[in-house]
């Protein structure tokens, strides 16, 4: 399933970079110390962008969730994720600058987190697939040789465990619920399933980060991940979706059209009023 040529398959036709090209505007890694460590910088961007983009996505539910209690649950998860992003991006450089003044091609999040919310079932399917992976990843990153990454992971892993548990509870209830909730959960899993292989991609940067002991090799916990997802789906009386052609590229800045719209909403204010404070 993994191992497909990363650059040739993409989620959507990639938007033309022309006028939005970020060439020449890249954040330099470790600008403060003058020392450059691009592997560490890229690793922090990937971790931070995953959390930031999913946090922003979940924020879109605010005021629109099926009940006020679910509204709070989703907002809590989103805020946890934005807290993680603050730490990861702050370790990479100027966190606000990275979050609000990068263009879409410079974001290194996985494609799964930028997927649209869809209905509540699609959101919960995405949360299960992502949070289960993130929990296992952070479990490994607690042993990172980079003290900052290890410390953030150790704090965040408890938050993420709760996210994964809550998502699993909802996947079970919707999958093993009414005819309509079951249909919606099947559709939600189908939508998100093709973005799972990217979570386990070990490209050059991830490989070097793992070899140096600052990152984690996700292929090490692929089997555990598959088993845990399978167990949740079994409890939900659902079959795992058929494997589709994996879609890769997010880690190198090749995103679906959805991310551009998300960034437009997220970045509008600080870009329009650069000196705004609150």
């Amino acid at each position, binding site marked *: 399933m993994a191992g497909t040529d990363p650059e040739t398959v993409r989620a959507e036709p990639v938007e033309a970079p022309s006028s939005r090209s970020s060439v020449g505007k890249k954040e330099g890694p470790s600008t403060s110390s003058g020392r450059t460590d691009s592997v560490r910088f890229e690793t922090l961007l990937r971790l931070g962008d995953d959390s930031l983009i999913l946090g922003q996505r979940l924020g879109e539910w605010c005021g629109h969730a*099926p*009940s*006020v*209690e*679910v509204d*709070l*649950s989703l907002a*809590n998860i989103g805020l946890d994720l934005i807290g993680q992003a603050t730490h990861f991006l702050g370790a990479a450089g100027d966190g606000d600058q990275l979050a609000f003044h990068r263009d879409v091609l410079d974001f290194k999040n996985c494609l799964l987190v930028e997927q649209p919310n869809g209905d509540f079932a699609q959101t919960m399917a995405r949360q299960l697939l992502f949070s289960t992976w993130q929990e296992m990843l952070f479990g490994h990153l607690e042993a990172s040789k980079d003290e900052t990454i290890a410390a953030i992971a150790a704090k965040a892993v408890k938050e993420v465990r709760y996210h994964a548990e*809550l998502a699993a*509870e*909802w996947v079970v*209830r919707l999958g093993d619920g009414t005819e309509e909730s079951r249909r919606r959960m099947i559709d939600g899993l189908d939508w998100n399933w093709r973005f799972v292989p990217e979570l386990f991609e070990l490209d050059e940067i991830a490989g070097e980060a793992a070899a140096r002991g600052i990152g984690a090799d996700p292929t090490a916990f692929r089997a555990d991940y598959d088993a845990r997802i399978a167990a949740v789906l079994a409890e939900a009386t659902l079959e795992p979706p058929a494997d589709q052609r994996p879609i890769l590229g997010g880690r190198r800045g090749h995103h679906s059209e959805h991310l551009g719209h998300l960034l437009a909403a997220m970045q509008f204010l600080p870009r329009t009023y650069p000196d705004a404070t609150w």
Partner: protein
Amino acid sequence: MSNDWPLWEVFVRAKGGMSHRHVGSVHAPDPEIALRHARDTYTRRMEGVSLWVVPSASIAASDPGDDAAMFDPAEDKIYRHPTFYDIPDDVKHI
């Protein structure tokens, strides 16, 4: 959706040794989700170390229309109050 869900009363223990205190209620389809909702709604700011949820329908309540018979007779029985001895300063939460 939440209109179809039963109501649950939420009790939070603020710290070890204290009793659980009623803090409010949530809608939820079952006990497990009720606990999640109670956690997300009432313990976001470190308010608790333990949570109870109880189906609101399981609570038998006194009738407000009957409160005179229920509560007034206790009003003038001052000898029932434990106010005739000193409580040591070290004893908390009484």
